[in-house]
């Protein structure tokens, strides 16, 4: 596709002066800009939208020690801002964006992440979402380790942080389009001083759909100097965009100082530069042989997952499909522009933020527009594609584009749409119940129509936008389907939709999804290959150890403002010879060097895990405080554990029959199909409970999944307010 002009797209900036002139200043705050010192500014910017108050406050050393930064800071501010009975749409709900101490270093790949934390409209517990783009780093270089937003504005507002001038303004902004691909472009150009200044501006926006659904996402922009447009990355999970629009935020804009190599003012720049150079060499030398991230991003996973029977197909019923080659990495390799730089922050040589340029939309309000589509990533290709039985790259790209610009999480939408399609297949939904919409597996136009309805808060789309958990309840209440079947096939835990891996045949991954703090997102633990393919986790204790170590190790990325991908989507040449190759020991050492290089504090892997363990347990207790966070809330839908239907059983009959014979001790030939399904179910559900027992024990939790006082004391997380929450659950 090299003939595509990557600078050509439909113009979206109209009348910037007129739009800006319509702004009404609500509040102004002057401050002294400062660069971080050893990765930390020690300052938080607090904004109350209702009171129209903007102020800064210091972040005490004690908070830094306990929570490190990023997700830890977000959880800290959320805890202090809300009560156990607070709802997501109450004004006191807190939306925090925090970059973390290592965020913004330009030398090491994957160092531009910030963390969004808020009370989720899907789960009613805290959600944390890790996102790229330039906003986090530029926020920090403007002087702040966290942006903490509370209250609700009366009308649509924007917050503009000028880290050069030392000025923050809250402005009513009635005219601009909230859709992200427009808002990012408009506000970037509105607040950049000139062309050269465009990369120093970043925008956070949601989109029109975030006003009508619980699966709203936030888009974080950066200016792409080659495409000459803004690009976006998403804080996808858990409805952060929904909270954003509920607060009447149209956009956040940061205008930072020019970025330099030492903007974090690190303790030892040379140490960081050395590990950074080493990683660039490694990615240059091995990416072509390993994951092809630089050409295909995470979309390279599509055919791998299909080959291992892990690709979600038809709402996670199956793990592969004959049409997968139509959406595999070869297709994306061709469709993505290969002649440009695709990092979502400086120094990311992994460069997985691929873009499909010159794409003409067929549907919706932007029909006929030529756009650049950011993605699809694997999750999007699998969620909007195979999981919905859609194997046409055009529809996947179009739905990807609209999800992003409307402010809809592609992962949740993929799982939602797949659920709706299966409901339609099984007669739980029909044309009468959907308002005339036919929603069959494989129908890309229907997937788009449902999304456009969702964006307008109309029809079946309005219902779908509430998420799988609420749809299950609603359809059962209406008597449209068997509650048990709906429970089994509705792929959510704690209210959050599953991300796009089939966990049926990996017990460890069943835990990796359902034993998470925020809900089933694979960023805590992805253990399928270790468990299923490499057979490295044979016992419950082995699985429990992996479900202790990896969630903690991965949590650390979110505390520090890092991306997980350069940890194990590239490996040193000799990694396989290491004693624990799955941990990628050399890269772990890189991170220890990186942390010491930025902050000046030498740490060991045990220190790193301890930093995470404090926050991880705090978040677990936070869930408990909000009414979840016990064993009953860690229970997955049966489809993530085993075959729900006859067709699912038959699709892997050999595997299940073998399990009956060898693990359960019954002769499958003596059982009817329904009896076989029942016996496998009993066995697998029991096995999952044993896994919970082992994991809770390893994590230092009670059999009900509550962190014990000893655990909290060991971590220094036995704060009075934390102990107060757990104590009633520990009696007896």
């Amino acid at each position, binding site marked *: 596709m090299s003939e595509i002009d990557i600078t050509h797209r439909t113009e979206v900036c109209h009348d910037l002066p007129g739009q800006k002139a319509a702004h009404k200043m609500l509040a102004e705050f002057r401050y002294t800009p400062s660069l971080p010192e050893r990765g930390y500014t020690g300052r938080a910017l607090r904004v109350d939208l209702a009171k129209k108050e903007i102020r800064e406050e210091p972040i005490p050393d004690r908070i830094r020690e306990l929570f490190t930064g990023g997700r830890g800071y977000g959880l800290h501010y959320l805890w202090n801002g809300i009560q156990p009975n607070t709802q997501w749409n109450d004004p006191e709900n807190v939306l925090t964006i925090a970059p973390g101490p290592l965020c913004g270093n330009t030398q090491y790949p994957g160092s531009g992440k910030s963390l969004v934390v808020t009370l989720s409209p899907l789960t009613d517990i805290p959600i944390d979402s890790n996102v790229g783009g330039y906003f986090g780093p530029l926020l920090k270089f403007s002087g702040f380790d966290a942006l903490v937003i509370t209250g609700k504005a009366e009308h649509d507002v924007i917050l503009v942080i000028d880290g050069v001038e030392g000025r923050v303004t809250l402005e009513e902004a009635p005219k601009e389009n909230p859709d992200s691909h427009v808002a990012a472009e408009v506000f970037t150009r509105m607040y950049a001083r000139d062309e050269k200044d465009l990369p120093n501006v970043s925008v956070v926006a949601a989109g029109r759909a975030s006003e009508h659904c619980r699966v709203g996402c936030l888009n974080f922009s950066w200016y792409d100097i080659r495409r000459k447009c803004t690009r976006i990355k998403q804080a996808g999970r858990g409805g952060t965009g929904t909270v954003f629009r509920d607060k009447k935020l149209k956009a956040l804009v940061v205008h930072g100082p020019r970025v330099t190599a030492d903007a974090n003012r690190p303790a030892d720049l040379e140490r960081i530069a050395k590990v950074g150079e080493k990683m660039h060499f490694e990615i240059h030398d091995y990416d072509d042989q390993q994951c092809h991230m630089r050409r295909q991003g995470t979309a390279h996973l599509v055919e791998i997952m299909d080959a291992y029977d892990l690709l979600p197909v038809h709402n996670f019923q199956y793990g592969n499909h004959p049409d997968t080659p139509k959406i595999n990495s070869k297709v994306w390799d061709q469709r993505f522009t290969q002649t440009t*730089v695709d990092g979502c922050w400086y*120094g990311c040589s992994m460069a997985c933020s691929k873009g499909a340029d010159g794409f003409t939309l067929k549907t919706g309000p932007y029909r006929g527009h030529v756009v650049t589509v950011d993605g699809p990533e694997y999750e999007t290709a699998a969620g909007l594609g195979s999981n919905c039985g859609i194997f046409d790259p055009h529809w996947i790209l179009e739905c990807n584009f609209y999800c992003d610009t409307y402010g809809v999480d592609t992962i949740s939408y993929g799982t939602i749409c797949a659920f709706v399609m299966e409901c339609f297949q099984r007669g739980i939904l029909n044309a009468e119940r959907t308002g005339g919409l036919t929603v069959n597996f494989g129908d890309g136009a229907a997937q788009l129509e449902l999304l456009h309805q969702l964006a307008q808060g109309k029809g079946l789309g309005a219902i779908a936008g509430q998420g799988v958990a609420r749809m299950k309840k609603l359809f059962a209440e209406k008597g449209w389907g068997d509650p048990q079947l709906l429970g089994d096939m509705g792929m959510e835990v704690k209210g959050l939709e599953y991300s796009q891996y089939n966990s049926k045949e990996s017990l460890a991954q069943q835990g990796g999804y359902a034993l998470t703090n925020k809900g089933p997102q694979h960023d805590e633990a992805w253990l399928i290959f270790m468990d299923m393919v490499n057979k490295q986790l044979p016992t419950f204790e082995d699985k429990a150890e992996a479900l202790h170590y990896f969630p903690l190790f991965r949590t650390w990325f979110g505390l520090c403002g890092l991306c997980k991908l350069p940890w194990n989507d590239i490996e040193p040449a000799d990694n396989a010879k290491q004693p624990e190759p799955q941990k990628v020991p050399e890269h772990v050492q890189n991170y220890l060097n990186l942390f010491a290089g930025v902050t000046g504090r030498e740490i060991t892997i045990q220190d790193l895990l301890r930093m995470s363990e404090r926050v991880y347990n705090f978040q677990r207790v936070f869930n408990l405080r909000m009414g979840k966070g016990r064993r009953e809330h860690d229970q997955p839908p049966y489809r993530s554990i085993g075959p729900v239907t006859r067709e699912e059983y038959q699709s892997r009959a050999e595997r299940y029959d073998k399990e009956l014979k060898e693990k359960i001790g019954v002769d499958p030939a003596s059982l009817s199909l329904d009896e076989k399904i029942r016996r496998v179910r009993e066995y697998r559900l029991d096995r999952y409970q044993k896994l919970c027992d082992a994991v809770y024990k390893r994590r230092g939790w009670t059999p009900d999944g509550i962190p014990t006082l000893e655990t909290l004391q060991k971590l220094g997380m036995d704060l009075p307010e934390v102990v107060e929450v757990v104590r009633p659950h520990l009696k007896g």
Partner: protein
Amino acid sequence: MKVLTPHPEKCQGAFACVKSCAKALNKKDDLAHSAIRPKKTAQGFSFTVCNQCGECIRVCPTGALRRNKAGTVLIQRDLCVGCLMCIGFCPHKAMFRVPGTATPFKCTSCGNCVKACPHGALTLESQDHANLPA
């Protein structure tokens, strides 16, 4: 464009090129500041130096690496954020950084080393750059 072209068979190991480059490019006597790096091997001398192929332009996220009108690839310091990707992705490993500094440097085809070499082991050759990254 002018491309610095080593002729290893003529090199006698005087390292005059290295000294002159460090001085001309970075105003240093420390040889680590040179963008040309001859190395003695069993077969004689080999040279590590930029051939102006422009692969580094492709990976630079800020546009700090550009080809000038004459075709030479230069780093615009005020645009460089010190990401060092150009070092990792140079096919000839001819992008350098001195320990303790934040940004890289490379050969600018200035010709000082050509003049400094007492044995004529370096020349500047004209090449077409029309189809190379700009």
